[in-house]
């Protein structure tokens, strides 16, 4: 009997040791798979990108990066982002405010509409704008009369960029604002604050880190957008080419130059990543400040 019990306890010990070894093995395996996957699909291509960019020497790299066409493409990309991001900032705050703090008919429909750009292929988004504003589109004749160019021009690129990026900020804010509720705003109003003061002093400070995070994601997407912009741009060099479009154009003729310009976008991504990490750290720090109760002696 005693031996049976002893052997049983040894069995349990063994099982436990095996389980521990299994879980350690599992952990190592999971990490290995992840690292291999990341290396193969992320780090290796990025390495190749930089290698190819500098394969022709520093001189060729500088020639590709610092020339008029690239400069113009960079300018246009920055311009599109500089318009799309503030526009979506306003739209995102308004939409999140409406959805999170008020009850109204058609709210779920509105929420679904905000997600539309996530669901629709960017190419379709571009085509929609062509159908609406293009020469043969609905407003084509009227726009022609007013001498306004939208498609195959800068306004079209900005519109397409706004369309593709508009859910980012709203989506980031809605869950947070819903969780925070409206009581603090009611308290501010009761204390005599007007609507504007309530927004600046109560609502905005409560959402600022999430808002910045949303702006960052929105900006990254705005600068990298290819599909929708490609349809409405017309690929006119020095006129309607954004950085991603410019890279594609170069790739057909001069691979090394394409890689060189692509490093610009890659650097942009690295900056975004760094800023995102810093923001996440800041958000965690704030959460910690409001989560840990200090014991009072």
């Amino acid at each position, binding site marked *: 009997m005693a031996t049976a019990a002893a052997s049983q306890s040894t069995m349990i010990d063994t099982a436990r040791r095996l389980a521990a070894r299994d879980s350690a093995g599992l952990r190592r395996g999971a990490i290995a798979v992840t690292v291999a996957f990341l290396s193969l699909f992320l780090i290796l291509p990025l390495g190749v990108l930089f290698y190819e960019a500098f394969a022709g020497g520093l001189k060729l790299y500088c020639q590709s990066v610092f020339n008029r066409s690239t400069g113009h493409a960079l300018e246009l990309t920055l311009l599109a982002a500089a318009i799309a991001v503030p526009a979506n900032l306003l739209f995102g705050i308004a939409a999140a405010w409406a959805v999170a703090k008020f009850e109204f008919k058609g709210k779920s429909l509105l929420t679904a509409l905000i997600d539309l750009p996530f669901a629709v292929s960017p190419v379709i988004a571009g085509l929609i704008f062509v159908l609406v504003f293009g020469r043969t589109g609905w407003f084509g004749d009227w726009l022609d009369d007013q001498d306004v160019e939208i498609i195959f021009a800068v306004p079209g690129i900005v519109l397409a960029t706004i369309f593709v990026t508009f859910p980012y900020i709203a989506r980031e804010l809605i869950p947070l604002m819903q969780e925070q509720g409206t*009581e603090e705003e009611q308290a501010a109003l009761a204390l005599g604050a007007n609507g504007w003061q309530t927004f600046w002093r109560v609502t905005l400070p409560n959402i600022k880190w999430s808002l910045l995070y949303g702006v960052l994601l929105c900006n990254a997407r705005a600068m990298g957008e290819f599909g929708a912009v490609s349809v409405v741009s017309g690929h006119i060099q020095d006129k309607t080419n954004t950085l991603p479009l410019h890279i594609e154009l170069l790739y057909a003729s001069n691979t090394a130059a394409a890689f060189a310009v692509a490093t610009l976008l890659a650097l942009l991504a690295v900056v975004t990543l760094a800023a995102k990490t810093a923001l996440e750290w800041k958000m965690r720090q704030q959460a910690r400040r409001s989560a840990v109760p200090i014991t009072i002696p």
Partner: protein
Amino acid sequence: MGIEVRRVTKTFGVYKALDDVNLTIESGELVSLLGPSGSGKTTLLRIIAGLEVPDDRRHSQILFDGVDVARQAIGQRRVGFVFQHYALFRHLTVFENVAFGLRVRPSATRPRPALINDKVRELLRLIQLEGFSNRYPAQLSGGQRQRVALARALAIEPQVLLLDEPFGALDAKVRQGLRAWLRRLHEELRMTSVLVTHDQEEALEVSDRVVIMNHSKVEQVGTPEDIFHQPKSEFVMDFLGQVNVFHARVEHGRAVLDNVRFDVPELAGSAMDQATLYARPHELEIERARNGAPAIAARVLRINPAGAVAKVALRRAAGGELQVDLPFERFQELALRTGEEVFVALRRVRVFAPEYVI
């Protein structure tokens, strides 16, 4: 400042939260709105504050010292509102929370920074949190947060203080302490205050007067003593504490219960042949033997002697349970044991106007 609520109705969709409510609150009074959830008490408070707008009906008014404020925005009414879940500004320190109402004033009426500083320090002293001005709300206990919320409300020198279940989210011990503190504060400031609560003990303890609400209407208004001892309806009687219910026949103006006749003044000369009698546990008396006074037979079921009174549960010989609270000395004198047969005398019973059922 006196408050008058006149003919106020409020509907949310098809649900009527307030049904033609009238109420007068005297200047300097602390009044509790007491009722079960869904009785309309919070809606009434929020309408007084201006957080809700009453239905647009003729003659419906909210008067602050005779001035109708029903269509005024909350910011114009100068009310101090304290929320159940504090609603402190989480990104501001205790100091800045209290200073908020002063800082958002238009520049013409905004006090100078030094004055704001003095005022906030004084309020922090009042709520006994002087050393906490740089803490954030999340670094305070529930009771401390509610005190900060109160100081923040007082900072704007409100005409009225409105408190929406202010102690509802706190544990029993803290609640007791804050309740007594609030009463002392009220005695000091004498500010017209309205407190919403569903805790009858809280209402009876802190208020000058209690407003009992049920089904979107006011059931009874009175001093705590009044409503406890002279409840006007079955609902009030039942809501304010335990109650024993007896269904009796009525013969010649007297109630007959288990073949024992009771004199009930309210029944004298009445034409009813059935009546429901109500008695609180402390209004019943236990006797070992019949002593001439009318009493009904019962058997002791359970005894709970832990407390200021001994709580005795009995089963009536005719069926049904009874609750009797005995003063501890009386309980010791009787030396009751479970299973014993005893007699229960009804020292005081009440009869409410019957609701006829056809």
